[in-house]
């Protein structure tokens, strides 16, 4: 979380992007000169399936206000099935976070292909707006890491 000079809340957002689709999608949105919020920090992973629930929690611990996981569309996984497993895993994790009273909007999964630069930018804009509206992450933060 950051607060700029005008005291408006600028959330920190972590986006885990799979190397084959979504990271390339982010690249494409860049080469197409499409804008997306600069407070999105992209972490490239080999496959959405590489993201284990601990990654998501660690991102929150280290100051993220929202975490989004992007991978290839179901059926298009570079490793054939990785995103199917990721989908189940994240569904259960998000449901658990909700169960613990953490705001539902703070986590999201989106499928973004290498050809969807536009979708990448749109997704990031809408996610950033949602997190900004939710405000700083207070329920799943590590107080020691608060800035």
């Amino acid at each position, binding site marked *: 979380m950051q607060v700029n000079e005008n005291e408006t809340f600028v959330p920190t957002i972590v986006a885990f992007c799979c190397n084959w689709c979504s990271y390339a999608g982010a690249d494409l949105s860049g080469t197409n000169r499409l804008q997306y919020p600069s407070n999105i920090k992209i972490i490239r992973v080999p496959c959405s399936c590489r993201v284990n629930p601990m990654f998501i929690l660690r991102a929150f611990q*280290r*100051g993220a206000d929202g975490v989004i996981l992007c991978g290839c569309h179901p059926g298009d996984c570079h490793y054939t099935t990785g995103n199917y497993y990721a989908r189940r895993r994240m569904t259960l994790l998000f449901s658990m976070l909700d169960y613990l009273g953490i705001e539902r909007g703070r986590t999201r999964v989106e499928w973004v292909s290498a050809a969807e630069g536009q979708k990448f930018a749109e997704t990031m804009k809408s996610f950033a707006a949602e997190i900004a509206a939710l405000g700083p992450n207070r329920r799943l933060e*590590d107080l*020691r*890491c608060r*800035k």
Partner: protein
Amino acid sequence: MKFLKRTDLDCFLTAAAEHRTIYVPIDEEPNKSAYRRYKPRTPVSQGLKTTRSAKDFFFPQTENLVGFRIEDKKIKILDPRTEHEDFAVFGVRACDARSFGILDKVFLSEPVDTYYQNRRAHGLILTMTCRRPAETCFCTAFGIDPASPEGDIVFTETADGWYIEPKTEGGRDFLAPLEEFLEERDEGGAEEAKARTRETMEKLPLAGLKTDSFGGGKTKELFDRPEWASLSEACIGCGTCTFVCPTCQCYDIRDYDTGREVRRFRCWDSCMYSDFTKMAGGNPRLTQKERFRQRFMHKLVYFPENNGGEFGCVGCGRCLASCPIHMNIVKVMKTLSEGQDEQ
């Protein structure tokens, strides 16, 4: 002798809380209590013991020791210590009261642990006699009298209140502004209550527990006993016994990188954990049997050896109540004593 009526406890504590922070046992659920900061009109637990011991007040489960931050290419050292506020812990039983003496031997001997010392200097211990000891109690085995606890002020409990006896200067100062809540009563009632407690202790199942087979200098007889294998076989290696124990004092020091600074903190450790004593070159205690043995040898042999014969256990019985598989120091003592007799 001074007496505080049960009905006046709330006023007494409320008035006392104006002078210093008071911690009292509060029921979280029936038969389960924890120390909490006293707030007026909160009922104080009638239970015998809190689930966690009172050692947290002086030796908390986790505390920051020092911090480091890089500023202008220099390492800046941050001292998280603040002047500790004065506080009092109400309702400490004789077993926990003795445990502070044991912790003192560890933390206040050279080199003195200033974090512990700081807290200790600001804390008053208000102890209470035990009216209804539990079957898991065996403090008498270690020479503790639950009818006459140590502490700054002793509260001898009767049906309608407490006889109050300050034992230290700090205790007298604490009571001075609270005289109005106390009345004068004949000591007979106190003696009667004490006699009843002692009588109950004799009827408890662990009343006859013997410590003869243990103490300093018994390492050779006990260390290689074959019974350790069967005693430890069911141990799941959790830290419950050590964390509820009022006298377990082992800790680990770790660094936590917050992203802007490094915080060096200490936290309780347990000899039951597989990475306890892990060091460069390996771990001298590789199996649960060795870890298990360490805990009991420490309390029953090594500690008395280094501390003039005083055992490192106060018989509070928390480990008996909390152990997931019900293996505990009493079973260890009984098993090893039996074997001793046969030899």
